[in-house]
């Protein structure tokens, strides 16, 4: 493969010009990644517009040296920065320009050093740097570039390949670092933008311009499970987001650091970047007037933009809806335990009502979640026989169409949601789900709260007891003993999958012992154990 040891100013310009076109193809997809209230409603578009301004200026560079082009890019970016992500992007170019100062051409080591500088300057521009954003991606990418140089690699293309790979990995990792991303099941939009720009530059260096015309950048997908929203976070509270306020301040002897200090307490997501003649300011505030008044005393304001973020939030919710499969039916499950909540979330439940055995939710609790869920057609899975009647009452209290699939246990709820058909409408789905219930048997293991006699069993207080489909039919000295008694009553020949959800008080050793025991006795079975985190029941076992 071809190797490149030195890059001239023209190539620097052309590579990022190609990267801009590459980003442009992806900007709508990046917009769709946006998570509110992470700043800006349209990260992809903002980064693309910032890049356009960056490159327009690059073509007006006074000379063709790398330093000249990089400085022009930094200037263009500052002047044309749009949105939070655009401002941070402008800092990246500023860092690059500082790193390439006085360079006619640059080599791999120069580029690595400049990228490091970019990452540093980008962090500096933001008052409260948040990890899991484009800042993190830039830093990880720059570190990979430096590692190539440290390893003695002099090929700029190889260095960029390592940089792009690291950026991709960093983007995929963003949901681990930032909970809002995890909740929304997306990667960071700004990080994706940085990755796309770097990737576009790399493709140019590799000579893939023809290919770039035909293809399109790919959105990185994270392998971190999508977690269901808890009702408290999806309830439509009247929290005002305020106004996203941004402008370019021009003047003489401006002092960005002092301006930053003065604005620090006036809002959130504050970014102040620039030099003594031009400063770009971005802030989320409830009182944009105060910010403008303050700025007017320092210089002249340009490209003033004040946007109502509550409106942006509405647009965002609409967009979220479009990302989902073409169904307008939402499923709500009543679940106790964080593990089980995640299980239902990963299977597509729109929301979860906390509740279960000994903590039955009220009709009002369920109604609240129903009203807060972004759909007019809702299927409720009560997952407990004592909650079915409560769930049935919701229909008379809401305008929305409600169907209750009478799931009596967690495993029934799981098979019900698994059989959900994305093509079917609500009535058909309720029918399909109800039909699926007979395909599963449920074992629940708990402890008796008092000594008693039931179904011919003599039970001591706190003794492990076992229920099969809600009926108490086994008692023993250990959980394992009770489970074995119950399993031997069931004909397991036709069973394929056993899933053990272990509760908050279950011990890891015992769980392993139980699943190993089942696998040994019934080698044809697929056995899974998953942390359910449910209270009261040490184990809930699904037999399918």
């Amino acid at each position, binding site marked *: *493969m071809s190797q490149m040891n030195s890059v001239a100013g023209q190539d620097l310009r052309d590579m990022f010009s190609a990267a801009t076109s590459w980003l442009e193809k992806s900007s709508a997809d990046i917009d769709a990644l946006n998570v509110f209230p992470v700043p800006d409603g349209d990260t992809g578009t903002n980064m693309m517009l910032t890049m356009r301004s960056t490159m327009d200026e690059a073509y007006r560079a006074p000379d063709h040296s790398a330093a000249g082009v990089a400085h022009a890019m930094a200037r263009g970016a500052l002047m044309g920065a749009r949105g939070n992500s655009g401002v941070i992007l402008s800092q990246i170019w500023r860092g690059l320009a500082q790193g390439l100062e006085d360079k006619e051409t640059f080599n791999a080591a120069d580029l690595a050093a400049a990228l490091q500088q970019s990452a540093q300057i980008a962090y500096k521009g933001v008052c409260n740097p948040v990890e899991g954003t484009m800042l993190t991606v830039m830093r990880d990418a720059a570190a990979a570039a430096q590692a190539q140089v440290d390893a003695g690699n002099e090929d700029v293309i190889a260095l960029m390949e390592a940089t792009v790979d690291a950026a991709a990995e960093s983007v995929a990792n963003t949901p681990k670092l930032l909970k809002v991303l995890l909740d929304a*099941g997306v990667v960071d939009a700004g990080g994706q933008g940085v990755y796309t720009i770097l990737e576009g530059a790399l493709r140019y260096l590799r000579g893939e311009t*023809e*290919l770039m015309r*035909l*293809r*399109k950048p*790919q*959105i*990185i*997908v994270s*392998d*971190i*499970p*999508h977690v269901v929203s808890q009702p408290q976070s999806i309830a439509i509270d009247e929290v005002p987001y305020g106004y996203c306020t941004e402008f370019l301040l021009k003047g003489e002897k401006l002092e960005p650091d002092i301006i930053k200090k003065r604005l620090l307490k006036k809002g959130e997501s504050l970014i102040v970047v620039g030099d003594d003649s031009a400063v770009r300011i971005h802030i989320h505030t409830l009182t944009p007037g105060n910010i403008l008044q303050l700025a007017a005393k320092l210089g002249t304001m340009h490209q003033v933009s004040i946007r109502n973020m509550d409106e942006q939030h509405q647009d965002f919710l609409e967009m979220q809806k479009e*990302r*989902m*499969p*073409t169904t307008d039916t939402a499923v709500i499950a009543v679940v106790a335990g964080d593990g089980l909540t*995640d*299980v239902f979330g*990963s*299977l*597509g439940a729109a929301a979860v009502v906390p509740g279960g055995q000994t903590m039955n939710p009220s009709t009002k609790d369920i109604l609240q979640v129903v009203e807060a869920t972004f759909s007019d057609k809702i299927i409720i899975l009560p997952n407990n026989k004592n909650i079915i009647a409560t769930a049935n009452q919701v229909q008379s209290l809401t305008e929305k169409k409600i169907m209750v699939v009478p799931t009596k246990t967690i495993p029934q709820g*799981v*098979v019900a949601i*698994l*059989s959900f*058909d*994305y*093509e079917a409408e609500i009535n058909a789905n309720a029918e399909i789900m109800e039909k699926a219930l007979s395909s599963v048997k449920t074992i629940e293991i708990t402890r008796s709260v008092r000594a008693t006699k039931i179904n011919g069993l003599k039970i001591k207080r706190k003794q492990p007891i076992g229920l099969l489909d809600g009926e108490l039919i086994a008692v023993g000295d250990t959980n394992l003993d009770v489970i074995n008694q119950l399993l031997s009553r069931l004909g397991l020949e036709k069973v*394929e*999958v056993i*899933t053990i959800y272990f509760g908050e008080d279950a011990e890891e050793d015992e769980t392993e012992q139980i699943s190993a025991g089942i696998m040994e006795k019934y080698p044809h079975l*697929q056995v*899974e154990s*998953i942390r359910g985190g449910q209270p009261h029941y040490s184990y809930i076992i699904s037999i*399918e």
Partner: protein
Amino acid sequence: MVVKVVTDSVSDISHAMADELGVTVVPLNVVFNGYTYRDGVDMTTDEFYEKLEHEEIHPTTSTPAPQVFSEVYDRLADETDGILVITIGSKLSATGESAFKGIEVMKKKCRVAVVVSELAMMAEGLLAIAAAKAARDGAGLDELVKLTNDNIPRVGLRIVFDTLEYLHRGGRIGKAQALMGSMLGINPVLGIKDGEVFPFGRERSRARAIDHLYEFVAGYSRIDELAVEDATTPDETGAFVKRLGAVFPRERIYLSKVSPVIGTNVGPSAIGVAVLGDK
């Protein structure tokens, strides 16, 4: 003159089928570790899956250049005055665009019609097979374009596999995003709807997933063509085909391999079934 049918390698038309029906297959590219292989030409399907399972680096795929199509058109123009091109859907690949651009750069004179199928795998393959058969029976180019367009809504595709890992790594998940990140072991059943990958079911075991495929086929009231394809599981596929004998003559079932381009996204355990017919 008999109209010539051209398709891309994502159609999973095997060399034997292509020879028998006179179909020309244009390869997409698989990029592994910086090296580009033409699908089915520079690397066999078996070699590919071997690499896929054992190499850490995830392969990517790329569209054939317009020149690759124009060369095929120019070569076929010596034998015919009409060429029908059937490609993978536009939401999955830019191959259709490349096939169109190929017309602009071709040197010889010949009518070329491109149908972008909004499908992939043997669903796309069955369109090419049906068109090639009709062409052999004397259908003209316009007739074939109409036939193919009429057939598109009549083709169904279902694929099952053990893991979403590969689809995930390739980023071509489409609406099947809804199945992602499941904490339970699930065998997804995917297909294509409106040109995008779409989740049609989630089964708790491989056996049930295969049952799902069977029931999908059995749900057709009339079957014109049927194809079954796998990646690396011939024994399981053999048993499945035997079972399908109950609903369709076994000797008429086309057997094929999931091409590396799709294999990159679905992984080595994929089994797919495609039906041309009416429900």
